[in-house]
């Protein structure tokens, strides 16, 4: 029995060795062929280039976020939380409508309701957030802008959590869940309650948010 086991182990070992041995035959390379093994006989120039390529590849991979990060696809209204290339959370979102609103009394100035693109960081994590309505929210509804700041506060419309990523933009909840998957917001990113809680749990202050 012992000899049989030993023979099996030896055969496995030899098979692995043969299968992984470097191929020193010249490789006919065509544009459609994918060849990863370097040819041993090639000159130092190619070897230096290969080494440089591998070093640069490694440097580029080191720039990738090592912690979980948030990815937002504004065209398809999707939010993902990814960690080391794997999707940890996949949510339907609502992002900026791309519409414009003229600023009253200023012919040259307007608000553009886009979700900003690029890389951002989670700057704040709030629970039970209250929306402080900006000027455009009143103007859009055809109302006058209140002078009293207290009249701007609207609790309960942003869900249980909000993650701020700068310049007044937040990832937050919504009362209008039927509009998820559509470009309807003023630039913020809306999620349903379950996904919002998931993102809030996974993200920390400093978590990267990449929006495209």
């Amino acid at each position: 029995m012992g000899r049989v086991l030993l023979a099996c182990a030896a055969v496995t070992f030899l098979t692995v060795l043969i299968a992984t041995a470097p191929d020193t035959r010249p490789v006919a390379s065509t544009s459609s062929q994918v060849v990863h093994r370097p040819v041993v006989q090639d000159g130092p120039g190619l070897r230096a280039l290969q080494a440089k390529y591998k070093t640069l590849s490694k440097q580029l991979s080191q720039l990738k976020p090592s912690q979980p990060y948030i990815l937002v696809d504004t065209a398809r209204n999707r939010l993902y939380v990814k960690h080391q290339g794997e999707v940890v959370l996949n949510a339907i979102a609502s992002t900026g409508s791309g519409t414009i609103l003229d600023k009253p009394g200023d012919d040259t100035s307007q608000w553009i309701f886009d979700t900003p693109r690029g890389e951002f960081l989670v700057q704040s994590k709030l629970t039970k957030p209250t929306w402080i309505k900006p000027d455009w929210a009143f103007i859009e509804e055809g109302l006058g802008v209140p002078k009293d700041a207290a009249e701007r506060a609207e609790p309960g419309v942003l869900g249980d959590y909000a993650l701020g990523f700068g310049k007044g933009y937040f990832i937050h909840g919504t009362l209008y869940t039927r509009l998820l998957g559509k470009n309807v917001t003023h630039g913020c990113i809306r999620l349903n309650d379950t996904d919002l809680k998931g993102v809030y749990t996974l993200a920390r202050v400093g978590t990267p948010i990449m929006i495209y």
Partner: protein
Amino acid sequence: MIPQHAQIRLMNLCAILLLFVLTTPSWGKDLEAFPNLNLNDPRSVKEATRVLEEELKLAARPHTYVLIDLVGNTIHIKGRGVELHHMPIVQWSVGSWEKLTGNHRLVARPQVVRRKIEPGKGDEQEPISLTDMPADYDLSFSSGLTINVVPLAEKGNLAQGIAFMGKAWWRRLKNWTSTIGTDQPSTSAAQLEITVSVDHAQSLAWSLVDGMAVLIRRSADR
């Protein structure tokens, strides 16, 4: 006769060795920036290192950028070296290879017709969507490069096919006439024409922002 404990040790060693051999190539592959690179072709490796040197500069900043890979026939939207989105290229043609090096900053992109909100009208106003994006457009860059994005007509849609082909020929005719009377041959223009599906052309138009950097990985078959 080998004692039983020695046999077990040897088998454990073989198992560890087997695991090591099986997992090592996948580590290396993860680190490679271009999995489709032919490492035996010096021109391909040189081009890949040139692109990587440029990409490292872009990936070090908190901005998204575009990598047009003419070897892998793919447009990648990237940030920090991470691929955010990709779109396949159906076909491409290029005016001058040399002028495709470096990173190119987008200075002009297609106009998007935005809807204006009428105060007090609420939900009646339609938001912008991907289908509002243009599919046939030119992108101009600070380096002088122009990228013509040409949509591929949907199968069976003859009218669309004729319209797209007509536009492409009109563009080529305009380019050709602009070189008449100059010493420069038309092929020396820094111009790249890429054909993608209508959806991907619209998706690219959506993803681009002013000042965005674009890198091009050239094919070794040039």
